[in-house]
């Protein structure tokens, strides 16, 4: 990770299960440790030694959303979502093979874009 953010992650099932769906929970903070509720975190993963990713396409939960009524706009079209306590959840991860995995985090937020990798052996 660059040094714009501090990122910690955990999974809903621990250890990460073999060949089953799991979710990643990321907490995004600034360097002083204050949570960032208005960013986004996209999580993906790959097996560098095998040259492939996951057989699934994870989906980031939108967070806590409220419709934002813009003058003249359809009420349903715009949503205003925040991530209280800087918590971002991506569902639909699957490690379908045993071996070396790398989780990729792509962050955007008020401090600009950033990326981070984390290694995990299944």
């Amino acid at each position, binding site marked *: 990770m660059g040094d714009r953010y501090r990122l910690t992650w955990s999974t809903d099932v621990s250890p990460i299960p*073999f*060949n089953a*769906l799991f979710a990643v929970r990321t907490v995004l903070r600034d360097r002083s440790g204050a949570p960032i509720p208005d960013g986004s975190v996209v999580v993906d993963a790959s097996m560098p*030694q*095998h*040259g*492939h*990713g*996951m*057989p*699934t*396409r*994870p*989906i980031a*939960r*939108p*967070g*806590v*959303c409220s419709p934002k009524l813009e003058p003249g706009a359809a009420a*349903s079209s715009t*949503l205003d979502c925040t991530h209280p306590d800087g918590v971002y*959840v991506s*569902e*639909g991860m*699957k490690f*379908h*093979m*045993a*071996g070396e995995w790398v989780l990729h985090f792509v962050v955007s937020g008020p401090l600009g874009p950033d990326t981070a990798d984390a290694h995990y052996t299944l």
Partner: protein
Amino acid sequence: MRTTRFEPLALSLLLGCGDSTLSQKELAVVLSMSPIPPPPGSPTNRYAEAPAAAALGKDLFFDKGLSGDGSTACSTCHDPARHFTDGERVHTGLGVGSRNVPTIETAAWQTWFFWDGRADSAWAQATGPIRNPLEMGGSAEGVRARVIDAHGVAWASAFGPVPDDPMVTLALAGKAIEAFERTISPGRSRFDVFVEELRTQGGSSVLTEAEQHGLEVFLDSGCTNCHSGPLFSDMGFHNIGVPQVPKGGMDIGRALGATRVQEDPYNCLGTYSDVAVTPPNALTATDAPGPKPCPELRFLDASFDDWPLAFKTPTLRNVALTAPYMHDGSIATLRGVVELYNELPGTPLIGHRELTLVPLHLTGRESDALVAFLATLTEEDGLDSSAGAAP
């Protein structure tokens, strides 16, 4: 007599020179392969456990009247006497297809159906062959007419009146067939007895020397990377590079199946599914906890790089009795399958062979032992319960 043991200290004095020991890691893998647990639930089919539906499903499975010309039943290709396969290279129904008939004994445990996984439930699967012109050549309307004619009583006790909409009727017929398939399992094998004795007595000599050697070869050769768990399948899709002899086009396997299951009106998210699908638009969802329906389908990546020429890992239970092998039935014997893994001949026409596979170059003795081990996965005493007998 050869005995496989795993307790390194307590029983070491009992080991003769021909005996095997399993490391703790190997032991964990072996224990994970038996017994077969009860099947998971089938959330898209509210009749999955209903005995009346299973009884109807059994009638339907053996009924040639569901086919367009009255000649072909499910059981024509899925013959109970052959562990629900037909012994042919590729299937022959009303026409000749391009795929080998897989067993249905593990249907209750599966996530994806067909070699390419183009159905996501056993009931959705069952609606396919009925309408496939090369298989049964029937139709939803034809099924509705047939159940009214020939299955009225069993249908009424399972579902009540026959719905007017043929698509709904066909879905229910599929759900009855799934309920029947859930009464079938691969059955108990000598391997299961072996694992049970390992677990309860710390050692077993149920398998012959060659068979135990074959188990070691199986564990050492990475077979369990894909043929894992009690059904000897990860239920996933892999390109192992079975040489294809394209006839009228290449069979790209999962690359097409993944798209087709997303488009199938009978899939988990469709209107015929018994799963309550809310909300329809994921964007309006909040972070409210709790299970959301159809996760496997919703998170499926249909354009995954490794899908071209990937086929579903078949179960190895009863595999000695279900020749020929592979999605196209191109390999006649288990020894031939082992030769494929020994040599990995040729290069797949598209995509690439799974990178974890390396030619095994097993000796003749090791190859024979591996085949002997695979035969220990064969069910012991004929077919289970009532599933085998035609009514």
